[in-house]
């Protein structure tokens, strides 16, 4: 049985060294407190899904985690250093792939652009970008332009761009929210595969409970107003995950029910069975 705890130490992973830590993190837009007093840490190589109802402040949280936004309270620590701006070693994949890729650059140039800025030599740039594109299965599309590709493929280009700089952690903001269901499952498996292959830490924001449970080692449930970490749930489903087999496990259903309940009612009801009988 999984336990729902709002415990700050609820991390898993053999190594246990925290890569990303939120310390008393809070943010407010003017008078409106979005979230407050968030305490959690993400271990090396861990896959954490942040799930919560829409409007709960997931994107704001992600922006403060990555240093794109200065939080009003508390701090984010990445590899031991307080995050003030996007740190080296942390890459971000945005939700809106169509606007995060440059239409005037080829797939290869899009992927290589951050490397160019980092001063990586041309031959090395080419090697790293091609490697990253191979990782996402797009090595035959290097000369194409983003707008010639389907949505799923564009998002894979964005993932390759994140991978090209060889990050140690990757943060994804609802990366599959605007692709169709089939593509979505493909991309989920792709991200899992890449994570296993490269051993990077992943934080993924989603509003989709199934997706969160399917992907994560730990599901972080964000809810309430202002939002707090309602629960950190260990997902002890067998690996590697598989779309059909994993989702057919009773354990999977159990976990998603639990997450669902936590999102709907921040304080879990004492006797949940009584609710639907009416």
């Amino acid at each position, binding site marked *: 049985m999984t336990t729902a705890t709002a415990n700050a130490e609820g991390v898993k992973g053999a190594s246990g060294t925290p890569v990303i830590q939120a310390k008393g993190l809070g943010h407010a837009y003017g008078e409106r407190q979005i979230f407050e007093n968030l305490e959690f840490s993400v271990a090396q190589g861990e896959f954490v899904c942040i799930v919560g109802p829409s409007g709960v402040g997931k994107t704001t949280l992600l922006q403060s985690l*990555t240093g*794109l936004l200065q939080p009003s309270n508390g701090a984010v620590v990445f590899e031991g250093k307080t995050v003030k*701006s*996007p740190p*080296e070693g942390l*890459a*971000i994949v*945005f939700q*809106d792939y169509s*606007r*995060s890729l*440059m*239409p*005037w*650059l080829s797939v290869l*140039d899009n992927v290589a*652009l*951050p490397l*160019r*800025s*980092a001063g990586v030599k041309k031959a090395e740039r080419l090697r790293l970008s091609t490697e990253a594109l191979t990782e996402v*299965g*797009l090595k*035959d*599309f290097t*000369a*194409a*332009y983003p*707008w*010639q*590709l*389907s949505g*799923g*493929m564009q998002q*894979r280009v964005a993932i390759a*761009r994140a991978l090209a*700089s060889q990050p140690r952690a990757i943060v994804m903001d609802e990366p599959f929210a605007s692709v169709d*269901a*089939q*593509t*979505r*499952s*493909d991309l989920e*498996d792709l991200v*899992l*595969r890449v994570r296993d292959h490269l051993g990077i830490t992943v934080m993924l924001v989603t509003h989709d409970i199934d997706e969160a449970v399917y992907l994560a080692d730990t599901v972080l449930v964000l809810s309430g107003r202002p939002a707090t970490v309602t629960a950190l749930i260990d997902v002890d489903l067998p690996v*590697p995950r*598989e*779309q*059909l087999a994993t*989702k*057919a*496990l*009773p354990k*999977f*259903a159990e976990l*998603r029910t639990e997450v669902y309940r936590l999102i709907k009612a921040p304080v879990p009801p004492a006797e949940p069975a009584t609710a639907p009988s009416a």
Partner: protein
Amino acid sequence: MPESVTTSPAGAGTPAPAGAAPSRRRARSSRSSRQRELLASVGLKIAAIGAALLLWHWFALNRGRAAGVPTPARLVETAADMVATSSYWEAVGSTLVSAVIGFGLSVLIGVPLGLLIGTFKPMERSTTFVIDFGRTIPGVAILPVVLLLYGSTRTMVLILVMFSALWPILVQSMYAAQQLSPQVRQVAKSYRMDFRTRVRFIYVPSAMPFIMTGLRIAATISLLITISSEFLGGADGIGQRLFNSLSINDNDRMFVWVVTAALLGVLLNMLLGAAQRRVLWWHPSQRENNR
């Protein structure tokens, strides 16, 4: 049992969703159908020109006769004589030089200034009134003053051209500076891109669509104002020759100048269209050309 999963992929390792083959920029899928399309469009263009010529001919023989409008045939005859003279080409050259210099100076001033104003909100707020005021004044309205100051010179023409062509470039460049989406800004920031990379690969390309629009509008205005100020202010060029022909009732020649001005306009538009396709081939408005 949990409810069954409705959307389930065959396997984790399935390749990319098909479709969207990488049709490269210059690749042509079906050559023959494209050629047919091209032929049809050229045919329609010729038909439209033919219809316009017929209408003109009919008008010249009826109502237009009293006003001395030449028939197309007569016009071609006169034009053939005129283009053989160096005086014709001097006038055309003079007009072109004025228009190009005036346009070039407008670009040199308008683009950087517009980008600067557009980038900084306080600057935009403080200049809005001046810009809206300035661009509403018709260029010819200040002609008497400029003529008084500089006489019938090229300087007079250039000042008038710049006074008119600068505004669209300025305004479009201001918009251009604001075209950068917050999303792209975040991408640049999250990947710690340096200023040079941002300018070259992000800022400039994303500003180009609006700047190009400004340039196209301004180029046409430059030619128009050059000819008008030659006509009204007497500086050398097509406009002045037009005026001279008009004042001695030489209608045939006058219409050759009119047509010359029109042809220059068409040529200019074609050049700019080609430039736009070269610069903005990636833009949705140009993409149908690469399919």
